[in-house]
């Protein structure tokens, strides 16, 4: 279970270059990862409370009279903490580290480093205060963009200050021929300002007439996952997986097609949430077409990365990073297959608005996106600290509890949604009965959410001991 024996730098780079990159980025990247993990813990904790509230609406009964414990206020906080606190921040951490490492260029200069660190502090302040504002009743009410304007503007500005240098690294890289991972990094880091800026401008900063807001919300949700977070997750897979396995990319020429395919389709995928809704008919059709066509780039990515006939390096077996990266790819296949299925009008008529949509969301945001970021985290931290920092037992526990919790959650959400969806299309079944059908699955979802909370706590503990230099949990 070796986590640190594979250094993602090109063969023609010497290790002193990698060390220079690591020492220049140590503080920013660890700061980002550390904050990301603590938001992950809080987000999964709130998600567990929300899951319990689905079976006991007034849980916890002592606090049910308080506004800040209402489902409607906690639900957007949990999602936003996951998206902006954990996923975006982990993607930024991984993104700037991979960009610098693959280019072989450190972040030079005290001013640059200080700017990045100040921006990270502001990012986290915006996430914290924005969430508290939602708790206090100042949500904008726009899904995924609930933070008040001052918080979203801070996130936007902080992102530019953190990511700008990483984008420039592409042109100052030492490798002549750009790696696939490097394209994905540039695309992902460029798309956040574009997507988040447009959506906030038109939906919260200076809202358009509401009749036009639906498709823009849909464009934002799809783009946020497929153009910002997924490309960084794919960059980590493309950068790490072949190196850990010690094999070459298969059909690299096809990777270009997959890259442009994902960028082209990513903006349209979100429309799936409006099939049959108050939008022009061609948009409903575009939702189905794009979801089906997304299977092609996903197929190519999997062929690129899984279709190897070469024998793996012996030490790749049991590598935790590899395990996370592979599970990310499996979840990506799930996103493609389930997303395409659910976008067919006939299927959508039954399953849309049920927890099947939530299952697809979890498959993308926890599976295809967070799993590769976990893999990157496990490779990156020992590199930055210059020693095998992880406690292997805790790491293995984190891996297995995450995998079991995640796949169970997706399964229960899917089955629960299937049952309620089939009942919903039959008007004879009253709405209250439909809800009762979902009850057993809601109970099971609590179990899965508990596992995910335990997993994130283990990760938090392990990261803490890694940073504290094994003082807290002495090695036996």
């Amino acid at each position, binding site marked *: 279970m070796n986590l640190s024996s594979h250094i993602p730098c090109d063969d023609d780079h010497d290790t002193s270059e990698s060390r220079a990159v690591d020492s220049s980025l140590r503080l920013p990247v660890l700061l980002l990862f550390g904050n990301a993990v603590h938001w992950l813990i809080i987000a999964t904790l709130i998600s567990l409370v929300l899951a319990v509230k689905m079976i006991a609406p007034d849980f916890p009964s002592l606090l049910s009279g308080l506004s800040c414990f209402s489902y*409607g206020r906690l639900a957007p906080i949990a999602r936003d903490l996951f998206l902006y606190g954990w996923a975006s921040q982990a993607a930024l951490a991984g993104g700037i580290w991979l960009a610098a490492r693959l280019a072989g260029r450190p972040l030079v200069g005290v001013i640059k480093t200080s700017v990045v660190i100040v921006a990270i502090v502001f990012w986290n302040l915006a996430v914290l205060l924005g969430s508290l504002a939602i708790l206090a009743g100042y949500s904008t009410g726009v899904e995924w963009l609930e933070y008040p304007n001052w918080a979203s503007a801070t996130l936007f500005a902080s992102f530019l200050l953190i990511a700008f240098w990483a984008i420039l690294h592409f042109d100052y890289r030492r490798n002549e021929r750009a790696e696939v991972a490097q394209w994905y990094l540039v695309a992902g880091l460029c798309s956040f300002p574009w997507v988040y800026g447009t959506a906030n401008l038109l939906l919260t900063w200076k809202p*358009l007439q509401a009749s036009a807001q639906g498709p823009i919300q849909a464009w934002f949700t799809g783009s946020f996952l497929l153009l910002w977070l997924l490309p960084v997750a794919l960059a980590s897979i493309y950068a790490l997986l072949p190196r850990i396995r010690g094999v070459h990319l298969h059909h690299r020429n096809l990777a270009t097609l997959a890259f442009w395919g994902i960028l*082209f389709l990513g903006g349209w995928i979100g429309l799936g949430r409006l099939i049959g809704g*108050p939008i022009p008919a061609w948009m409903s059709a575009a939702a189905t077409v794009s979801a089906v066509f997304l299977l092609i780039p996903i197929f190519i990515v999997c062929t690129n990365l899984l279709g190897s006939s070469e024998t793996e390096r012996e030490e790749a077996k049991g590598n935790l990073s590899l395990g996370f990266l592979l599970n990310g790819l499996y979840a990506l296949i799930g996103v493609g297959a389930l997303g395409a299925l659910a976008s067919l*009008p006939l299927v959508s008529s039954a399953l849309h608005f049920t927890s099947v*949509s939530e299952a697809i969301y979890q498959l993308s945001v926890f599976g295809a996106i967070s799993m590769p970021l976990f893999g990157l985290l496990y490779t990156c931290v020992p590199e930055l600290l210059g020693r095998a920092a992880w406690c292997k037992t805790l790491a293995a526990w984190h891996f297995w509890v995450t995998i079991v919790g995640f796949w169970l959650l997706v399964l229960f959400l899917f089955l629960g949604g299937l049952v309620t969806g089939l009942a919903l299309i039959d008007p004879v079944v009253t709405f209250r009965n439909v809800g009762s059908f979902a009850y057993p699955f809601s109970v099971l979802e609590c179990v899965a959410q508990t596992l995910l909370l335990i997993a994130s706590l283990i990760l938090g503990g392990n990261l803490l001991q890694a940073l504290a230099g094994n003082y807290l949990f002495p090695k036996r």
Partner: protein
Amino acid sequence: MHRLPTLLSGIFLVFLISWIGLVAYSATQMGRLTPVADADSGGSLPPHYNGQAIAGQRVYASEGCIACHTQQVRQSSVTSADMSRGWGLRPSVPRDYLRDSTAFLGNSRVGPDLANIGSRQTNAAWHYNHLYTPSSVAVGSEMPSYHYLFEMRKIQGEQSNDALHLIGTAAPPAGYEVVPKADARNLVAYLLSLRHDYPLPEADTVKKPSATPSQ
């Protein structure tokens, strides 16, 4: 694709396609829809919200009602289930959202669709009771109670006109009454005005209402 400007221009062009298709198209086409004249009342459709309902939209947003409730009746070309469930007389169209500050379309139906809740439940007292103790008017409801939108106070002299008529475990102790706070009044005013039941040129209400709308 080995130089940044080339890669960036490619990325920009590809992003631009979906941006034009969904963002620019929506902003310029659907964002410029106008109300239509209503021959019957001499006003315009969709009707204006009153001031209380406009304030109620803010409550709807800040309480996160959208987490469990949609506001859209889907097109009959995709499904007629929404309409046969009694959630609307006709599918929702973009023009229906003209007067809203935010389109609360939603993505999850843990609770029923609310696009026409104002024509399904026309009684304000029902809504107050439902918000205070959902199960008192909708048995088995999974909705949490919104006690904090109400005030429980000692009855001074006679009981207030707007006090909730509560029975059973939800009832306040003797000598006390439960009255809605301003947020609850605004929210209910908003819910009562949620109705896509008027005809529009692009969406005629030909279908007659079903006998008993299911909750």
